[in-house]
């Protein structure tokens, strides 16, 4: 008497090579998923690390329009100095 399991076992034994090649994509897919998750987390971590560590690009045209309209101000701020050469970031750094 054969259970469905034992029939399956017979089939497995008859076609070992075909099954192996069919199973192979699964570990590959898992590895790929892990790699993608790792890349995503790495990028997110980099984002957290760099968030707020420098300056921001803004819509200067919109800012100027709002200043011209009187909605915003062009008042000189305190607490700044012209950047010294040693303070300037290397070319190509964020943002």
């Amino acid at each position: 008497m054969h259970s469905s399991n034992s029939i399956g076992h017979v089939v497995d034994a008859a076609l070992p090579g075909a099954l192996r090649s069919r199973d192979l994509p699964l570990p590959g897919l898992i590895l790929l998923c892990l790699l993608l998750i790792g890349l995503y987390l790495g990028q997110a971590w980099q984002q957290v690390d760099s968030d707020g560590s420098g300056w921001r690009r803004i819509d200067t045209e919109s800012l100027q329009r709002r200043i011209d309209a009187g909605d915003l101000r062009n008042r000189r701020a305190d607490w700044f100095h012209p950047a010294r050469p040693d303070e300037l970031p290397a070319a190509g750094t964020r943002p």
Partner: protein
Amino acid sequence: MTAVTCELCPRTCVIPEGGAGDCRIRVNLDGELRATTYGRPSALHIDPMEKKPLYHFLPGSPVFSLATAGCNLHCRNCQNWQLSQRGGEEMETVYRAEPSEIVSTARAEGCRSIAYTYSDPIVYYEYTRDTSALAHDNGLRNVFVTAAYINPKPLRDLCRVLDAANADLKAMDDGFYRRVTTASLKPVLDAMVIMREEGVWLELTNLVIPTLNDDLAMIRRMARWIVAELGADTPLHFSRFQPMFRMRNLPPTPAETLERARAEARSAGLNYVYIGNLMGHSGNNTTCPRDGTLLIARSGFWITENYLTDGGRCPTCNQQIPGVWQ
């Protein structure tokens, strides 16, 4: 192209022409840093002092409260992110309110003080300072509600015109500061010590977020630091977290967590530890640390009973309760 370095906060942003600092509102235009929201608040309200929260400073008085866009922190749980995480040019609502207009309106509305609040007044520093100076000239007091991420020199200058502050101490953990707020812990601690040294009445708020900063050992460390560096009479408010902004995956803080935090801070030596954002909880009330007499009962932002004597003393044992009561 002249880049400028902003000296206001510990980020010390180096900003090229046409760029803004990390706060979004301090902008390099033509090689000079510009305070683009000076006199241009986007929020104006009259609040009870208890909302700041300040429990030992002019209790029950209305405070004229203002804010402009921008902030130098980027907390994932920010409750005012529509204001704080935007530049002035992104705001739909901008009021024109010069310092003189703020002061005259505050007086006309019967307020005894002005609060610089909601976002972080550090980033609209010049507006805060000029309005505060004028407020003093007109008999009003100034309240600074802040995350205290500011450099020592500008802070000391500003303290000359400040009377009280509620500063966030978000966690006693630099990793938390970096992950959740993008700031760092040490400058915040330094700023708190400076405010105390400069004679600003200081209360602290710790927003307790489930699983992120509710560890009792850390809360004990925080309370011990406060006792040692700021004094045992510094009021500490444990505030209830509500899911907000980019942190909607965590539940509101359970009442028991806040109660455990309060018990831990009191056992570490703090005399005035409150629970906030939890309507009707007895942790909202002020009691005498000597004999336990109920001094001020609160419900939400409102005072329901006040038994303090005119001089700010316990009516039972005459213990002086620290604060600015009149």
